[in-house]
């Protein structure tokens, strides 16, 4: 396979867009006003990063496509996001744990990308790293408090760990599309970030009295376009306006 940076960036952009959209679903539906602003705020950070990545990918592939074409006109099997980010919000514990898992990974990813040989990726990393640091702080403090809160909140966060942990290993797998670029110091090596991630999550779980899962089961497939049925529902909602009114602007 000839190295194609646009395809590699698409994985990164899809992760950010899909999780960003998941967070936007909570606008007007979060359990309290403070979170109703905080969660879509974080969603906007992710969607902003996704936009920059899509735009850069379009520039590289040079097929006359725009960020809108990539976000709104691809179907389910063409999305290459990891499975974790498409998981439904379910309840607040799921939402906030998913955010912690993803932002802890992305913070270390962008930190590593600061030494990328590609100046544009380096620039995106500088901005996104700060946003991820806040996402970790926000979601991490919540995870600790849910774990060390009431019997009910502890049960909810432990249920979320059971449901979501199996999706985390996919974060650390380099795909055929990204392999060439991490070997050439253009994108970070995902596998190298695993140890640091486990230590960071473990430390938060300890503070929150949450047992760290021992089994190493994993569910993967997102990078090759194999998704859960939930992604189809998400895309139907996210793409409906653009597909109904192509080229609509406001």
């Amino acid at each position, binding site marked *: 396979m000839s190295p194609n940076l646009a395809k590699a960036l698409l994985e990164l952009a899809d992760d950010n867009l899909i999780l960003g959209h998941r967070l936007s679903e909570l606008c007007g539906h979060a359990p309290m006003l403070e979170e109703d602003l*905080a969660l879509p705020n974080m969603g906007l950070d992710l969607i902003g990063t996704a936009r920059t990545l899509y735009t850069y990918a379009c520039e590289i592939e040079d097929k006359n496509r725009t960020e809108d074409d990539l976000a709104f006109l691809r179907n389910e099997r063409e999305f290459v996001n990891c499975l974790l980010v498409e998981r439904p919000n379910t309840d607040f514990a799921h939402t906030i744990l998913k955010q912690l898992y993803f932002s802890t990974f992305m913070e270390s990813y962008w930190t590593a990308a600061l030494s990328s040989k590609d100046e544009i990726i380096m620039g995106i990393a500088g901005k996104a790293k700060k946003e991820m640091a806040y996402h970790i702080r926000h979601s991490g403090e919540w995870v600790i408090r849910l774990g060390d809160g009431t019997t009910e909140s502890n049960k909810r966060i432990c249920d979320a760990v059971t449901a979501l942990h199996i999706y985390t290993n996919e974060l650390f797998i380099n795909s055929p599309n990204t392999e060439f670029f991490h070997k050439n110091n253009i994108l970070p090596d995902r596998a190298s970030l695993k140890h640091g991630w486990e230590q960071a999550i473990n430390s938060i779980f300890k503070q929150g009295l949450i047992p760290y899962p021992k089994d190493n089961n994993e569910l993967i497939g997102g990078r090759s376009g194999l998704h859960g049925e939930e992604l189809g529902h998400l895309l139907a909602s996210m793409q409906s306006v653009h597909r109904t009114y192509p080229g609509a602007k406001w």
Partner: protein
Amino acid sequence: MTKTMPLWEVFIRPRNGLSHKHVGSLHASDETMAINAARDVYTRRGEGTSIWVVPSALITASDPIKAEENFEPSQDKIYRHPTFYDIPEDIGHM
């Protein structure tokens, strides 16, 4: 809600050199969560460079019923305003 999520008053300093100004209140379980929530709720449009949060319960306020005795006595003492000085024209704005 008020027991597990008490109310906090939020103060934001817009720029260095200015003082923190009261901007509103929010619910949070403790001071760390209150600072995070204040950042999310009140600094979304670049309003601030620094945040203070104070438990609302710790604020002692003047009694609205005593507003007359507190504030009316100052109303007829206009000589306390610095408006009785003639300022030479060439000084310009003070």
